[in-house]
């Protein structure tokens, strides 16, 4: 397919070969709502929210999965388009128990946004009265099937982004369900709890157990930071309410992790609030540690350093810095050792 131009809502715009209607439209500041679309994965066209009119086509087309062709005439903002989108949102709302009052994802839900946009409440169709039971036997992730709209974003993320290949679409028709191998609960499956499925879930079907009931989406502020675990340096958002991290999500599109996190990065944050944190300086006296003031502890260490230098020389002192802590801490420690104590006996665990 060659690149060229096409008509987008009556305007002639250019496109790249293979580009979808959605991408070309977004490049031209034309809004097309999406739900199942997940950047970086193969579009599935599952949710039918991104429908647009294409001249000459009998039915509406999904903008995410339809490539542009030269001269194509696309309409994104017609009564027919909006009626179809509205009906699809209505059907999705009717498919489950979308009671936003109690839902953990309220304020962070694409379905809720679309319902508000189209001013609908899901009462047009009869709701099913039975759902697969909620699964929360594992320690980290709650799977509430009554809120699952089967958009498949979790499946795309698991299989195409993090490539853990733990979940897929299972069963058929009204019995459809997102399943692990053998439909086992997460903790008895191939799942490695990276939580990418939770991150991309557009409703409250997949939520974080630890975050449950701690904060509404609009109550938190987001602070960008870097993961404290391995050396990949993943960029993340800390969701903070009242000076407390309630949840961690990946910084979408950011280098180097491009919206992914692993189990440690996503769920390993609450050691910060452990009751076992050290809260005061401690000094050993007669074999026992006791609490001390900063002045007392700092004075003691400075005196011991001076005494050791006087008695044995600066090279009788050795220090190990921390590869977990910030650069500025390591800089200060080596500066203390070199310029104040007078030794190069400073190292850290890079070699071990």
């Amino acid at each position: 397919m060659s690149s060229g131009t096409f008509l987008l809502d009556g305007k002639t715009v250019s496109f790249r070969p293979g580009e979808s209607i959605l991408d070309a439209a977004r490049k031209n500041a034309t809004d097309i709502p999406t739900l199942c679309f997940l950047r970086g994965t193969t579009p599935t066209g599952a949710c039918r929210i991104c429908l647009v009119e294409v001249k000459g086509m009998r039915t509406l087309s999904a903008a995410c999965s339809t490539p542009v062709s030269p001269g194509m005439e696309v309409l994104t903002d017609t009564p027919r388009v909006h009626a179809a989108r509205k009906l699809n949102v209505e059907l999705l709302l009717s498919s489950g128990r979308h009671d936003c009052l109690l839902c953990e994802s309220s304020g962070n839900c694409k379905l809720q946004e679309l319902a508000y946009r189209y001013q609908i409440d899901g009462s047009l169709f009869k709701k099913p009265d039975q759902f697969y039971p909620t699964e929360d036997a594992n320690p980290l992730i709650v799977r509430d099937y009554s809120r699952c709209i089967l958009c498949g974003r979790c499946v795309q993320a698991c299989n195409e982004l993090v490539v853990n290949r733990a979940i897929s679409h299972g069963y058929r028709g009204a019995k459809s369900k997102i399943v692990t191998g053998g439909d086992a609960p997460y903790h008895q499956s191939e799942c490695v709890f990276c939580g990418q499925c939770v991150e991309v879930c557009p409703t409250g079907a997949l939520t974080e157990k630890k975050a449950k009931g701690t904060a509404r989406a609009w109550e938190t502020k987001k602070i960008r930071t870097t993961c404290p675990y391995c050396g990949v340096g993943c960029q993340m958002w800390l969701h903070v309410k009242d000076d407390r991290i309630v949840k961690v999500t990946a910084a979408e599109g950011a280098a180097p992790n491009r919206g992914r996190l692993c189990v440690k990065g996503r769920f390993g944050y609450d050691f910060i609030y452990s009751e076992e944190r050290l809260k005061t300086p401690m000094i050993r006296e007669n074999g026992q540690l006791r609490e001390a003031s900063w002045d007392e502890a700092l004075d003691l260490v400075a005196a011991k350093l001076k005494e050791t230098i006087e008695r044995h020389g600066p090279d009788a002192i050795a220090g190990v810095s921390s590869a977990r802590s910030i650069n500025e801490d390591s800089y200060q420690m080596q500066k203390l050792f070199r310029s104040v104590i007078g030794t190069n006996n400073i190292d850290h665990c890079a070699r071990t």
Partner: protein
Amino acid sequence: MILVIGSNMTEAHPVAASFVKQAVLRGAQLYVVDPRRTALADMATLHIPIRVGSDVAFLNGLMHVLISENLYDREYVESRCTGFEKLKAKVQEYPPERASEICGISADMIRDVARRLASVKPGMLAYTLGITEHICGVSNVLSCANLQMLLGNVGFECGGVNPLRGQNNVQGACDMGALPNVFPGYQRVDNADARTKFEKAWGVKKLPDKPGLMIPQMIEGLTNGTVKLFYIFGENLANTEPDIRHVEHCLESAEFVVCHDIFQTETTRFAHVIFPAAAWSENDGTFTSSERRISRVRTASLPPGEAKPNWWIFKEIAKRMGHEWSAKSAREIWDNEISQLAPSMAGVKYARLRGDGLQWPAPNEEHPGTATLHRDRFTSGLGALTPVDWIPPAEVPDEDYPLVLSTGRRLYHYHTRTQTGRSAGLNDLLGEETADISPSDAKALSIGHGEMIGVKSRRGQVFVKANITDRIPQGVVWMAFHFREACANWLTNPAFDPITLTAEYKACAVRIEKVGEKTDQRI
């Protein structure tokens, strides 16, 4: 094409692994060299299960084929490298048949892999501690570099030799000069000009000119009296160093031990003073990743009680020893000192670290940072091909200790669990250590899955559940160091690479026993 050697990426660097797996889905070839059939090996074009500690022999065998079959990148080697003739002479001693005897991979497969590696460009090599944690760690790294240079793969995006750093800021701690031989920015302490520069910047008369001690020498120094005062910042040496009993004996021998930490650890048991430190999200500062990317760390909440940032603690000690340091924040430390003193980071300022940070070298404030090193020419001029010989691990199996213990990390925990052990849920996903053994070794000793066994080395013994898995080759026991009771470091061998003093965590000799009357219960 991606060659992964000595790296269990899906567990130790899961997000990096996701990009490798994605590349495979999009058609990239993946070659995984590892004694264990790791999760990444499941997706590989070929899994090459070399014997523990045979890396140099395998890599020399590959290079023998590349040279003898004229598959190497002659133009690249001639124009950008030096030392080819010496390398050629050395690898000629490793025909595939000889390499095969050492590494356990058939000569045909060695030839096949070499031909495949030469067939695609560029190819990336990624390694982790499976390469470095051997007494021949330096030789292993040099071999990886030799291979990539012969293939003409260094200096390109999606090429190169890529060590995956194990910790969030191990790159940064090196960059900052928390090493005994260099100031920040890798300026050598035995260089008089560098010392003059830092003496002026720090307002001191004379900086020490002799490189200092490395960690293993410091620990030994505690028992031979050369080190009296040991200052340990955020490290749990009593669990992380090989041969715990010996390390604890050394720590006990110290006259005075100072610790900074966020928790009491096995190591703070030896402290005379403990300073309570601010943790990760209580700091403003920077981390530097494996790819030299300097990224911001930001404060979400204040430290508990009276805990303080580490940089402040060091500053207060300096003050009490007659040195007033002016920087009042991490930002001032970086902008006014680090970036002024380290030429490769001169262009890195906090104001530029919004968003995705910067990869050094960034020598001036207009510089966009450097994603790929050695483009067009090697940083040092010509790429040095360096011949190396294979040597066996310091301790190899014998009649008394017939198995090889190799160690590493598991997905759900990080190091000694000071952090992950206190994060809800992670202990539920992995609550105890296991000794991973092969079905054939289990059968030989009538050991059942989940049965408690004793694992014993010349240093110590642990009791641990057997995890029987066909991911482990016959003759190997695999364990991690996350849990104190069954920590692999009760067993590991304090034998070190002579240059880096990196310990051989990846290989020592052990035996396993059913727990019964015969078992020696002493630990």
